[in-house]
C-alpha cells in the first residue's frame, strides 16, 4: 500500500518556509540581546577604551609611555605587591572559614540549609559602607573588642586592630565570604551523596571518603570561589580605604589618590589598565584550569 503525497521535489519541500522561520528566529535573538549589547558598549567598552587612550598621553598631552614607566617606581611596585598580598590573605582566610560552612550547608536537610543560607546572604542586603563603619566601631582603640579584651585582662594595651592591614583584612573577609561560599555550596550540592556511601562500601572511612571523593569533586566550585574572591579583592576600594586608614596602599586606593589628589587622569588610567589586564589574565588562567574538573563530571 502506498500513501499518496503531493508531488514535490524532495529537496525543496517547504524549503523557503523553513528558511524564513530560521531567519525570524535569528532576528528575535539579536533583537532581544540588543539592549544589553548597547548598554555594555555605552557604559563599559567606550569609556574603557577612552581610559586606555588617555593613559597613553603625558600631562602635557603628548603621546608617551610615561604613565606606564612611572609604575615601575618602588612605591607602585610595593603597592602592587600589597594588593596581591591582601587579596591572597583575604582569599585564604575566606577558604578556611567558608569551606566548612559550605560543607555544613550542603549536608544539612533542605529547611535547615535554607535558614542558614539566609545568614550567609544577609550581609549582601546591607551596604558595604555601613558594614565597614560597623567594623570601625568594633575594632577601634576604644571599640567594643578592645574594651572587652582589656576588661577581661587578656591584654593591657589596646590592640591596633584598625587603620592597618589587620583591620583591612578583617573587613574584607567579611565582605568577601559569601562570594566564596555561594559557588562552593553550589558545587557541593551537586555531589551525589550516594558517592560517599559507595566510598564507604569500598572500605573508605568517613575521613578517607571526604578526602578522596568529596574534596576532589568540590574543587571546581572552590576554584570558582577563589577566582571570584581574589579578583574582587584586587579592585576593592571602600574597605581598604576606610579600615586601612591610608596605611594600606592598595592599587585601588592609588587610583583614587591619582584622580582625587593629583587629577592625573592619564596616570590613573594606566593604573586601571594594568589592574584590568592582570585581572583578565588571572580569570583566563583559572578558566583554563577549571576545564579539568569540568571534564571529571562528564558534563561537556
Amino acid at each position, binding site marked *: 500500500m502506498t500513501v499518496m503525497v503531493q508531488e514535490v521535489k524532495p529537496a525543496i519541500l517547504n524549503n523557503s518556509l523553513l528558511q524564513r522561520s530560521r531567519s525570524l528566529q535569528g532576528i528575535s535573538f539579536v533583537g532581544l540581546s540588543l539592549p544589553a549589547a548597547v548598554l555594555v558598549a555605552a557604559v563599559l567598552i567606550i569609556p574603557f577604551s577612552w581610559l586606555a587612550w588617555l593613559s597613553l598621553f603625558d600631562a602635557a598631552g603628548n603621546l608617551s609611555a610615561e604613565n606606564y614607566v612611572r609604575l615601575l617606581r618602588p612605591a607602585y611596585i610595593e603597592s602592587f605587591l600589597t594588593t596581591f598580598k591582601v587579596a591572597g590573605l583575604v582569599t585564604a582566610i575566606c577558604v578556611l572559614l567558608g569551606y566548612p560552612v559550605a560543607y555544613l550547608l550542603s549536608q544539612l536537610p533542605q529547611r535547615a540549609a535554607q535558614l542558614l543560607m539566609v545568614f550567609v546572604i544577609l550581609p549582601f542586603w546591607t551596604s558595604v559602607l555601613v558594614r565597614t563603619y560597623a567594623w570601625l566601631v568594633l575594632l577601634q582603640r576604644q571599640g567594643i573588642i578592645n574594651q572587652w579584651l582589656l576588661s577581661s585582662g587578656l591584654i593591657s594595651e589596646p590592640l591596633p586592630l584598625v587603620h592597618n592591614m589587620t583591620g583591612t583584612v578583617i573587613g574584607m573577609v567579611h565582605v568577601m565570604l559569601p562570594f566564596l561560599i555561594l559557588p562552593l555550596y553550589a558545587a557541593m550540592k551537586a555531589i*551525589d551523596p550516594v558517592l560517599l556511601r*559507595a566510598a564507604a*562500601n*569500598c572500605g573508605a572511612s568517613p575521613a578517607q571518603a571526604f578526602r578522596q*571523593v568529596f574534596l576532589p569533586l568540590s574543587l571546581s566550585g572552590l576554584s570558582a570561589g577563589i577566582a571570584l574572591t581574589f579578583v574582587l579583592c584586587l579592585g576593592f576600594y571602600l574597605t581598604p580605604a576606610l579600615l586601612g586608614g591610608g596605611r594600606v596602599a592598595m592599587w585601588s586606593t592609588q587610583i583614587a589618590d591619582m584622580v582625587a589628589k593629583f587629577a592625573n587622569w592619564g596616570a590613573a588610567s594606566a593604573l586601571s589598565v594594568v589592574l584590568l589586564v592582570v585581572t583578565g589574565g588571572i580569570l583566563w588562567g583559572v578558566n583554563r584550569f577549571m576545564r579539568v574538573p569540568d571534564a571529571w*563530571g562528564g558534563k561537556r
Partner: protein
Amino acid sequence: MGAGKVSIRHVHKAYGAFKALDGISLDIQPGEFLTLLGPSGSGKTTLLNVIAGFERPDSGSLMVDEVEFITRPPHKRDLGMVFQNYALFPHMDVFDNVAYPLKLRGIDRASIRRRVTGALETVHMDKLAARRIGELSGGQRQRVALARAIVFEPKILLMDEPLSALDKNLREHMQMELKRLHNRLGMTTVYVTHDQQEALTMSDRIAVLDRGRVIQLDTPQNIYDHPNCKFVAGFMGETRFLPVERRESSYHLDDRSLRLASEPPHCDANGWLIVRPERLRWAGDAQRDNRIAGKVMDIVYRGDSHLVSVSLAGDHEISIRHTGSEGKELPVPGQDLELWLTPEASVVVGDAIQ
C-alpha cells in the same frame, strides 16, 4: 572463616509513623542468590541498606557468618555493592574506580593491576580501562560498578535494582550475565528489584516483601505456581482473580465445585482463583478439568500471539493467548467461549496471610 551466611532477626525500622521494616527475619544461605522483591515502599531497599550499614535499624539483629554486624560501620563490613545509579566516582577513570577498594585495603600496586584487570575482563570492560566515567554508556557503567563491587572478592554482594536504568534488551542480557557470574564466583548475592520477571529469572529464592514484612520466601517456581496469598499472586505474571466461595470442604466458582490438585494452604474462608493467560486451555475434559464460560470482549495482536480478553459473569475479565497451534480458530468479539483450567493449574489463594 565463614562463607557468606546472613541471618536477619526481628529487624524493625520506622520513619515516624511509617514502618519501613516491620519485624523482618530472614536467613540467607552461603552462595545463595536471594532476591528481595516488592513494590516501592515495601522495605526492600531499606533492608538492603541495613545489611550494607547505611541505615541503622531501631531494633533487631544482623549476623554475618555468626558475627553481629548491626552496629558495625559500613566501611568495615567488606560487602560488595552495586548501586541503583551505579555511584561511580566521576573524577576517576574506569581503572581507578575499580582499583579504589583495593587501594583502601593497602594492596601492592602489581596485585592491584592484576586484580583490576581480572575484574574488568570478567565484565568485558578491560579495553576501556582508561575511559572517564562520563564517556561510558549506561550498560558500560553498570559493568564497571559490578567490577568495583567484586574486585575485592567480598563474600556477599548486594545489588540495588542495578538493571532498572537499562533498556529492555540490555537488561535481559545483563540478567543472564549476572546469573552466570554468580554461578562462577559463587558469592552470596542479595538482589533488590521490583521486576518480577527479573526475580524469577535470576534467583535461587525470592523473598516477596510488602509493607515491611516478608510475605513469602520460596523458590521462584513455588512463588509463581503456589503463591500463599492474593498479594504474591497478583505480583507475579498477568494474574486475574475470580472470587470463589467456600462451602464445607470445597470451593465453588459460579455454583460449580472447583477441582483442585492441592488444598489452598492459607485460605479458610472465601478466596480467589488465580487465572493467568498461559495456564488457561482452549480445550479440556469436562469430567476432569474446571470450565470457565464467558464472552469474547476484544482481541489484541501481540506478535507472537493474539491476546483474547474474555468477560465473565459478575463483571470479571480474564485473558488467554491464541498462538495458532491450539487447533481452534481465533474467536471473534461477542462470541461465547468455554475455557478450561486443569486441577493442577487451578490455584486458590486467600486475601492475606496473617
